[in-house]
């Protein structure tokens, strides 16, 4: 059984990764999980400098979902390289670092620092965080800025560059193509959906930041649809993200055209969920007589005539 996949030069031993913002820097789970069972770990987003993040409350449950506004609290890229990377190098898994910036220059600078570091396998470019006042979704909400950021990161590193796209746009294919044209090696689809939860007694937002990003099973059909659209629009591989908590959920993304998947919110519900998802994918491949997970990618059969838009 072949489970290895490639995302534009990023080699993964299996297609199941832990999503940014739901797995810390990975080392928090040392001793609790066998990190080598993961195809890869995507770090919490990193800027050049440490950041406080958003005021609490930062998380709130919603129907089958989680609304969060953490605001990219983080230790900064240099502390990550100094304190965290040496520990991550001890684990046999791909390390993908989520790169943030308040400006194009900052994205490039963070990328340069990581390019020089030992133990980083790819960069995921965060142009889709809805919970910061500057940067984040602003870059992922305008195709020209998407192109500009990805171009700058591309120039700053030889590592595979994987922009993480926002679902808070009208047509994700525009952004997928802009990223591809700027030299992206793959795409992560998608980040959280912008949401608002209101405390009706106080008539205030339930999150300290106000709005937040919705994740979890509630968003999965939206995420599968957008990852599918992106995968059809570009030639580079797509990593599917959004509400995956079982093998069946992950298989939806693979069949829809994703080369790999990231598990996010479900890590909170069960930190060992990736092992169950991978075991379920293996069982599915066996049941369907498939030797290689890559043979499943993009095998969605479309109805001959139906509501699916032709591209």
């Amino acid at each position, binding site marked *: 059984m072949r489970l290895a996949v490639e995302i534009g030069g990023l080699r993964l031993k299996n297609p199941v990764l832990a999503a940014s913002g739901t797995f810390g820097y990975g080392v928090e789970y040392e001793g609790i999980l066998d990190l080598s069972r993961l195809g890869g770990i995507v770090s919490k987003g990193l800027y050049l400098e440490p950041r406080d993040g958003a005021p609490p409350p930062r998380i709130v449950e919603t129907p089958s979902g989680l609304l969060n506004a*953490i605001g990219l609290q983080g230790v900064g890229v240099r502390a990550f390289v100094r304190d965290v990377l040496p520990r991550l190098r001890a684990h046999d898994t791909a390390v993908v670092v989520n790169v943030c910036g308040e400006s194009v220059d900052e994205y490039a600078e963070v990328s340069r620092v990581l390019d020089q570091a030992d133990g980083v396998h790819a960069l995921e470019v965060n142009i889709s965080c809805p919970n910061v006042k500057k940067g984040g979704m602003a870059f992922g909400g305008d195709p020209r800025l998407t192109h500009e950021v990805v171009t700058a990161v591309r120039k700053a590193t030889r590592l595979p560059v994987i922009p993480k796209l926002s679902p808070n746009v009208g047509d994700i294919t525009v952004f997928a193509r802009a990223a591809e044209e700027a030299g992206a090696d793959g795409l992560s689809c998608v980040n959280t959906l912008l949401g608002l939860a209101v405390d009706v007694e106080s008539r205030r937002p339930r999150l300290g930041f106000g709005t937040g990003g919705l994740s979890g*099973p509630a968003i999965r059909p939206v995420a599968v649809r957008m990852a599918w659209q992106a995968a059809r629009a570009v030639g580079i591989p797509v990593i599917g993200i959004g509400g995956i908590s079982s093998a069946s959920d992950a298989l939806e993304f693979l069949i829809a055209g994703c080369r790999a998947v990231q598990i996010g919110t479900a890590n*909170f519900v069960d930190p060992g969920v990736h092992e169950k998802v991978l075991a379920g994918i293996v069982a599915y491949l066996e049941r369907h007589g498939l030797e290689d997970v890559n043979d499943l990618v993009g095998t969605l059969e479309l109805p001959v005539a139906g509501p699916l838009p032709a591209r």
Partner: protein
Amino acid sequence: MPTNREAPLVRRERLEGPYFLLTFRHPEVAALARAGQFVMIKAGLSAEPPLRRPFSIMSVDPRDETFTLFIKTVGPGSAALAGLAPGEPAQCLGPLGRPFEPPPAGSQALLVAGGYGVAPFVLLSRELLAVGRKPVVFYGARRAADLPLQSPFAGLGVPLTLATEDGSAGVAGRVTVALEAHLDLHPGPAELLACGPEPMMHAVARVAQERGLRAQVSLDPWMGCGVGTCLGCVVWVKRPGEQRPKYRCACTEGPVFDAAELVWPGAAASRAAGGGRP
């Protein structure tokens, strides 16, 4: 090191009203947990409610490989736990967090509980008794019906002073009224250890500050992961020597904090007073 595993329900005891004692099999929690630590736990794997809940560990039985939670059912997560039948599994990660530190020898250990925040003080009383210390427990709530967890303290021979806001049991008034009366009668070295709704812990922190005592408080914000990855449970903490407060995770650097390091009020901008895990 915490362990993530299925923890079957072993025993379920209904107390008054919405209160339950739930005992789960989890050898590592049973062997390692200390007072003030918690588990992240959820009944089954359904999408609803989405998250595990943090619950303070009330007691452990290492020989039985079990631990017990004191739960107030106020929403889908706690109700689902209380609805488990013996043998049915919960998903459980623990033990987690920083426990209460035993007060220095020679100072009174005054345990101040508000509502369902009384849970960790059963284990803490046992720990203190085991090293020859004699704690005193102050247990307050709105009304007598919200003081269901008294027998474990009687069983341990720990003095228990009750307080109710409506005067239906014990001292009439907030639990700090009973605490201050005790401090007036028994001056001298003492340390306050508190767990309950934030306004109550803020009041305990004020009492400690006014009287020059140390207070440890156990905070109760929403938590997503329990291990410091989601950064959802942060509180402002300012440690000695620091220029300004920093957001710190209640799950890994707490839930027990030195009250003097916290920024009150709003130390754990979290949930409605009165408490309970939805």
